[in-house]
């Protein structure tokens, strides 16, 4: 291996082979190349074919042979995505592809570019009731701070990762690890994160989260109190009392309004924690990764002794978590102490029903970024007009063909569900910043009005001739077809 290599040779660090790549050549993998002295990913440029019918999964098309079937030449069925298209950065030059096509009798233009996002991050929604960590605490990857805990939503914990302050505002290694973490999450890979004073988790877009080594299966159907309300009728007569253990609100059947209405007899049960309203208790234990998002593994620890005035020997008690994943059945002995017994069949059914009603727990990854000035300048000579056109929904914004939600207010700040984008749609630059595909689609007439680079518009058929680097995929069945005229830009 040469100690000194020519100035136009780059060393690729994408894998441990660490190829020295000469100008104009590719590395051992053929995926990274030296273009003009810069290390560049040379993955193919992705085109989307409109899914023939709903429910067609995203599947690769075989590389097309030279003979087009005519359908493509009509143009309306193929959408040129920005994945692999290249960027305008750092020059203020027109976007790499400005493509015109006729769709349903309307001339449409799609401006296609890979944007370099220094202002970007991901929002994670992690379906779990387990306590991941206190709000505002740091989320770390490989020991580096990459984000923080924001809040809890119904059945889910929310994290915010990345953002400009982690990417470029901290130490070099903080920026590098943040970029790497975002890239992996956006490309659907699993990452391991730890939360200060909290849990260690493994998450990947569209997959169940793993909290402290435990795979999360289901989301709770409701809080403990709501679960009592939903299932009271099914329990009535089969058991004397039910406790639904929940970190938020633990419910008790015999005290709950739903139980009272059915005429459930008082049982003398006494629960640790702060009583909110009858049959509803806050803070029965500390948050944790045990029963119903609490830290308990033995549910009896939340019970105080039964009141002898009301309780009776052989009283039947079911304790269950909000997802039905944990449950235990007890009967009181002569001294009114609960003794664990096997769960009777009729109750087993109700526990199964709770579980059934809990949806699969997933991690959702939304990429969020803001289109900067140079990106917008690649679309039009007058960037503010693009913003305006996007707000008025004359211009639709997509990422690799997936619909983007545009935040109200100034600028073009958008969010997109990464699972609806083609695989490996994201890249990075060492700045560090993420490279994400972004496409702006609008009527050709509107494009001229907003000062678009009309001289650079090329017909779709022209773009399709450059087949060497192109790859055709079928569009995601749930995505609205990006070229359809007049649809809004914020459907999702």
């Amino acid at each position, binding site marked *: 291996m040469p100690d000194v290599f020519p100035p136009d040779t780059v060393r690729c660090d994408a894998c441990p082979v660490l190829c*020295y790549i000469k100008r104009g*050549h590719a590395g051992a993998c053929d995926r990274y190349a030296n273009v003009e002295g810069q290390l560049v990913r040379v993955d193919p440029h992705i085109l989307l074919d409109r899914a023939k019918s709903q429910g067609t999964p995203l599947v*690769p098309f075989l590389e097309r042979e030279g003979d087009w079937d005519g359908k493509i030449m009509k143009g309306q069925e193929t959408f040129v995505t920005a994945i692999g298209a290249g960027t305008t950065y750092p020059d203020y030059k027109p976007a790499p592809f400005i493509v015109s096509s006729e769709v349903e009798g309307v001339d449409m233009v799609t401006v296609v570019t890979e944007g370099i996002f220094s202002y970007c991050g991901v929002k994670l929604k992690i379906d779990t009731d387990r306590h991941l960590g206190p709000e505002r605490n740091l989320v770390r990857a490989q020991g580096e701070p990459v984000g923080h805990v924001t809040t809890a939503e119904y059945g889910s914990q929310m994290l915010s990762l990345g953002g400009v302050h982690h990417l470029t505002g901290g130490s070099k290694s903080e920026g590098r690890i943040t970029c790497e973490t975002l890239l992996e999450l956006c490309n659907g890979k699993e990452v391991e994160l730890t939360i200060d004073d909290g849990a260690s988790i493994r998450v990947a877009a569209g997959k169940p989260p793993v909290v402290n080594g435990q795979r999360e299966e289901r989301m709770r159907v409701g809080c403990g109190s709501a679960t009592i309300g939903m299932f009271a009728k099914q329990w009535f007569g089969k058991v004397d009392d039910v406790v639904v253990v929940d970190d938020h609100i633990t419910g008790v059947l015999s005290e709950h309004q739903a139980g009272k209405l059915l005429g459930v007899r008082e049982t003398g049960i006494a629960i640790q924690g702060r009583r909110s309203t009858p049959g509803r208790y806050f803070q029965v234990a500390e948050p944790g990764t045990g029963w119903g998002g609490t830290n308990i593994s033995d549910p009896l620890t939340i019970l105080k002794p039964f009141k002898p005035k009301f309780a009776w020997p052989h009283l039947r008690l079911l304790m269950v978590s909000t997802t039905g994943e944990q449950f235990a059945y007890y009967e009181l002995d002569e001294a009114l102490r609960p003794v664990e017994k096997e769960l009777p069949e009729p109750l087993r059914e109700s526990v199964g029903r709770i579980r059934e009603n809990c949806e699969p727990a997933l991690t959702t990854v939304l990429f969020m970024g803001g289109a900067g000035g140079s990106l917008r300048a690649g679309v039009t000579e007058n960037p503010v007009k693009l913003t305006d056109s996007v707000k008025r929904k004359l211009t639709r914004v997509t990422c690799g063909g997936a619909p983007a939600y545009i935040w109200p207010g100034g600028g073009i700040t958008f969010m997109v569900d990464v699972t609806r984008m083609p695989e490996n749609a994201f890249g990075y630059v060492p700045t560090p910043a993420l490279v994400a595909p972004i496409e702006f689609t609008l009527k050709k007439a509107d494009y001229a009005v907003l000062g678009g680079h009309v001289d650079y518009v090329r017909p779709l058929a022209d773009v399709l001739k450059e087949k060497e680097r192109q790859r055709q995929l079928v569009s995601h069945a749930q995505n609205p077809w990006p070229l359809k005229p007049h649809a809004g830009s914020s459907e999702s």
Partner: protein
Amino acid sequence: MRDPALIRMLPDGRRLHLHDGPIDLIIEASGSPKAISAAYEAAARRFVSILDELCSELPLLRSRTEKDSERPLGAAAQRMFAAVEPYCEDCFITPMAAVAGSVAEAILESMTVAANLERAYVNNGGDIAIHLAGSHRYKVGMVERPDSPSLFGSLEIAAKDPVRGIATSGWRGRSFSLGIADAVTVLADCASAADAAATVIANAVNLPDHPGVTRIPACEISSDSDLGDLRVTRGVEPLSQFEIEAALGNGLRVASLLQEKHLIHSAALCLQKCVRVLPDSFTNSRCFCRDGFLKPSAPEINTQFELTGRTNPHA
């Protein structure tokens, strides 16, 4: 930044795709669903460290192998070394000549250790390690040029045959070749042996000093190539039938020598649409069928896989 290894099922739900740096594997196992999942998990577990393992000894693996060369330490690297050692006194060779086959073999071994499989293959860009039990068999289509895939022949391997490795080498492939063969496909006991032999035979399919062959020192294309300043083939003009026969004859002589030394079982050599086959050593029947097309599958034959071609990163 180190790209993480990719582990996923292909959209057909049957095949496993593993990718890391320059390694791209397509894997399929047959057996009970439990055995398949155990095998895939074992493959993925073995896979995640194999590239780092090889790279830790890269300078050694890229140097010329000689009788008294230092031996590598890694298990996969040792397979590479063992596969090229038989050639080291006769020609320039480095362990890298067997890297693809050795990786395929190492991954396959982890799978067959973990699960009881009827059959399985690990295809590393055309270098394939296969496992066959009972009366199972594989039918394989051969492609001469990765850039315009069309089958130039097919072959069939049954469990009773001693073949457990198939490899293809040629100047159009991803690795450099000193020869001009479009494709040389070799059947051997194992994938690493097939890989090394395919490299050696493809180098021998040659017309030295022919003006129609463009050759460039390997280091001019890739600074860190194991081939250093050896001149590798970058272009071959259309040759006359006589020249094609001569070049294929050179390759075939080397192939039969390797067969005599029990290094390979059989080989098919392809140059500009002409194919020469070295019949296999273990049976009167031929593994290779030169019918040009795969016949419709018999009931027990339901897998066909291509010998060449890279995996589409977006597939």
